[in-house]
């Protein structure tokens, strides 16, 4: 920590570069070349939008089958898979059908969601989907606390093509949301 910097002997060319501000001129040449070869990388966002990749993970949504029934069977696996405790499921039996369950209430606190997609992977009936929506800036963050109706509405507007409801499934596979009266009895 000396007060005077160590004086280094400059060669003639170094000395010449110093007094002509050579390094500064090189920098100014660089900036000027960007001005002359003007190719902006800016995307005028609200007017033009970047094409999203195919596996884009956007807003979460609840899906329906093609007959309009909810896919969700209230199994709580998404709630268990979620690393940031976004999801809260209140599961209940379908009234009148004691073998079927559904999510009576389904809440997502999107202020905490980190869009990892684990809930979508965890869902055994593909009831959750990730849409390509990302413009979810709101003035009040309570608007990001979504209930089941809102999530279903997002699913309705983002996934117009719905999956066909399967009434018959192989009995050895775990199955959900299937009316047992339709399953043929096992041959003994």
């Amino acid at each position: 920590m000396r007060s005077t910097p160590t004086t280094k002997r400059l060669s003639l060319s170094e000395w010449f570069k110093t007094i002509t501000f050579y390094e500064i001129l090189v920098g100014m040449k660089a900036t000027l070349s960007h001005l002359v070869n003007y190719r902006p990388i800016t995307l005028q966002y609200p007017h033009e939008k970047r094409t999203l990749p195919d596996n884009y993970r956007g807003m979460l949504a609840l899906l329906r089958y093609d007959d309009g029934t909810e896919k969700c069977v209230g199994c709580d696996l998404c709630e268990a898979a979620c690393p940031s405790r976004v999801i809260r499921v209140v599961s209940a039996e379908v009234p009148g059908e004691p073998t079927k369950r559904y999510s009576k209430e389904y809440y997502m606190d999107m202020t905490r969601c980190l869009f990892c997609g684990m809930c979508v992977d965890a869902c055994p009936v593909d009831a959750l989907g990730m849409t390509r929506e990302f413009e979810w800036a709101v003035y009040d963050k309570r608007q990001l606390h979504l209930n089941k109706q809102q999530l279903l509405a997002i699913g309705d507007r983002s996934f117009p093509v719905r999956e066909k409801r399967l009434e018959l499934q192989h009995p050895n596979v775990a199955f959900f949301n299937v009316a047992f009266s339709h399953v043929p009895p096992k041959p003994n």
Partner: protein
Amino acid sequence: MVTEFGLRLAISLTQIGAVMCIVVITVLILTLAERKVLGWMQDRMGPMEVGPYGILQPFADAIKLFFKEDIVPAGANKFIFTMAPILCLIPTFIGFAVIPWGPNWTFEINGIVVKPFIISDINIGILYILAFASLAAYGIILGGWASNSKYSLLGGLRSAAQVISYELNVGLSIVGVLILAGSLSLVKITDAQTGWFWNWHIFALPAPQIFAFVVYVISVVAETNRVPFDLPEAESELVAGFFTEYSGLRFAFFFLAEYANMVLVSCVASALFLGGWNAPYPGTLMELVGLSSWSWIESTMWFAVKTYSLLFLFFWLRATLPRLRYDQLMRFGWKVLLPIALANIVVTAIAVFIYQRI
């Protein structure tokens, strides 16, 4: 008697009004041009939203600043806090009174001699500008002190440290030109540079003022608080430096003062070193085609071209260079620029002395 006074007053006020309009319009253009040029140099677009290609952005900014809340922080010295932007702005605008915008013509109205391209041709023009430019620094220092805020105070103190580094060099770098022209009047200095462009003081024999020009440009970059010498308003270190606590119209005053100061120093540089309104060739093209009464347009255009080139240099430097520390600035000012300026004076004086004897 009264009518003569009234006429003089009317002429002067007209000139002042015209010059103020030109300066304010130039500042409006500069605020946009700076953001555009910086954007282009950094592969961005600059403002694009207001109007086609963002050309109405300065008006949007002005309207926004007009209607913003005017806040005086608690504990601030209200009088000085109010006065500081004005103290910063007025000296800058006053300086334009002695800038010759066009040829040194005169015409008479009712026996009153009118110089249309200069408000007041006083014989100490350059001293007048230097004196008022120094006063503008008080606005910055007092504004930083009166805000009752750490960052403002630090910005003001840095400005004080900066003043003593550049102020001397600005004055000394001009002396060589004064020796060559033999006058302190900007009109006479500009008139001494007529003819080809090698008569401009930056190239003029017997002593080209190229080093003085470089010293002047570097020093005025410090004087106008521009990058790389924007220490008083270093936004990455001191929130906004001396105008951290200012908002609304008072902030607009500081902003206007900074840009008007840039225009002023560019005008002075083009008048002193780059031949002012003189074209790079003798006379004007308008005279050659027989329109000598319209040649003032060409002259003022040349003045504008020179001034705007220097203003572009300001933007260019801003896009290129990072900020210096203020000990670096002071060391550079005192140990590099000051000796160059002094040596320039000695060399110029000797050269002119010998040149006059031959």
